[in-house]
């Protein structure tokens, strides 16, 4: 193989454009959702600036608006975002030698599903410059979109706001459905989890369990069942 040129900042920015556009629309939906849940604009933006994760933020807002406990919040974030551990771990194999402790402390802050996916798909080693470009643009649009959504949430007509409340769920569906089509294990896990979550939403007594715990319980039971009944083949975790 030929010696590869080091990946540049510009290359990172270029690869970041589709991620950034996606984040803009989805975080717009998050901003609207947050304001509708009673979160002030500044707090919605601060959540996006400090968390940079869609599912965790939505769950977080749900817990805040229900005045849930701090332990519930910590546990929920832990379970929902646990997948990032695997991504971080996997990414350590891709980083070039210049990543010392300070760089690791900094860059790990912005590992998302999409940034992980793009950087894993890149051949060779990842440079600091490349990763900076790949993270900077999506980080910016994630916060900008949240601001615009939260701002618009205060001025847009009710009908438009309601409709835009669908955006974030649309994104979740777009993440779930394609692997669900191809992979029996994913299909089984999603069906189990959805069935459990419906039980918690409609069955008396179970209805009283608060939102964060429902997500944890459904997530753990369905993933354990999946891991037991449909253990993944080698390499599969890197493809999706």
């Amino acid at each position, binding site marked *: 193989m030929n010696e590869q040129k080091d990946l540049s900042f510009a290359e990172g920015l270029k690869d970041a454009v589709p991620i950034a556009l996606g984040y803009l629309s989805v975080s717009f939906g998050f901003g609207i959702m947050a304001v509708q849940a009673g979160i002030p604009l500044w707090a919605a933006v601060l959540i996006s600036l400090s968390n940079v994760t869609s599912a965790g933020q939505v769950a977080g807002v749900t817990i*805040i608006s229900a005045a849930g406990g701090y332990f519930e919040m910590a546990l929920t974030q832990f379970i929902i975002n646990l997948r990032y*551990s695997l991504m971080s*771990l996997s990414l350590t194999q891709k980083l070039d030698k210049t990543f010392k402790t300070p760089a*690791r402390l900094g860059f790990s802050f912005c590992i998302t599903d999409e940034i992980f996916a793009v950087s894993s798909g890149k051949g060779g080693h990842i440079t600091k410059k490349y990763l900076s470009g790949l993270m900077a643009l999506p980080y910016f649009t994630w916060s900008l979109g949240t601001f615009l959504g939260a701002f618009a949430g205060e001025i847009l007509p009710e*009908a438009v706001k309601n409709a835009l409340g669908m955006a974030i769920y*649309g994104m979740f569906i777009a993440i779930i459905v394609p692997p669900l089509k191809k992979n029996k294990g994913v299909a089984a896990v999603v069906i189990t989890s959805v069935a459990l979550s419906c039980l918690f939403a409609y069955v008396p007594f179970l209805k009283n369990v608060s939102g964060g715990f429902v997500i944890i319980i459904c997530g753990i039971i369905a993933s354990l069942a999946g891991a037991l009944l449909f253990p993944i083949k080698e390499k599969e975790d890197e493809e999706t």
Partner: protein
Amino acid sequence: MNTTTLLLYIGVMAGVTYLIRMLPMLVFRKKIKSRFVKSFLFYVPYAVLGAMTIPAVFSAAGSMGASLTGFVIAVVAALLNGSLTVVALLASFAAYIASWLIPLF
């Protein structure tokens, strides 16, 4: 809700999320070997997103009719491999149209 409470919530969220991302990158230098743990971690995002989406999505757009319409359109668009942005926007657009059309019948 007062500012201190909000900041505490956000601090907990951000702190936990950061530690999850940072610790493996800092501490572990080897790959996970256990197939069971890898499988579990592989399935977690789908399980979590599934539970967060259903049934919450059925009331996401105000009325049930509009929400259902948006949900169905999102699933169809996702089955056709629409990108995250396209699916999100189509779902919202469908819910918006439905919220105007449904009361007419």
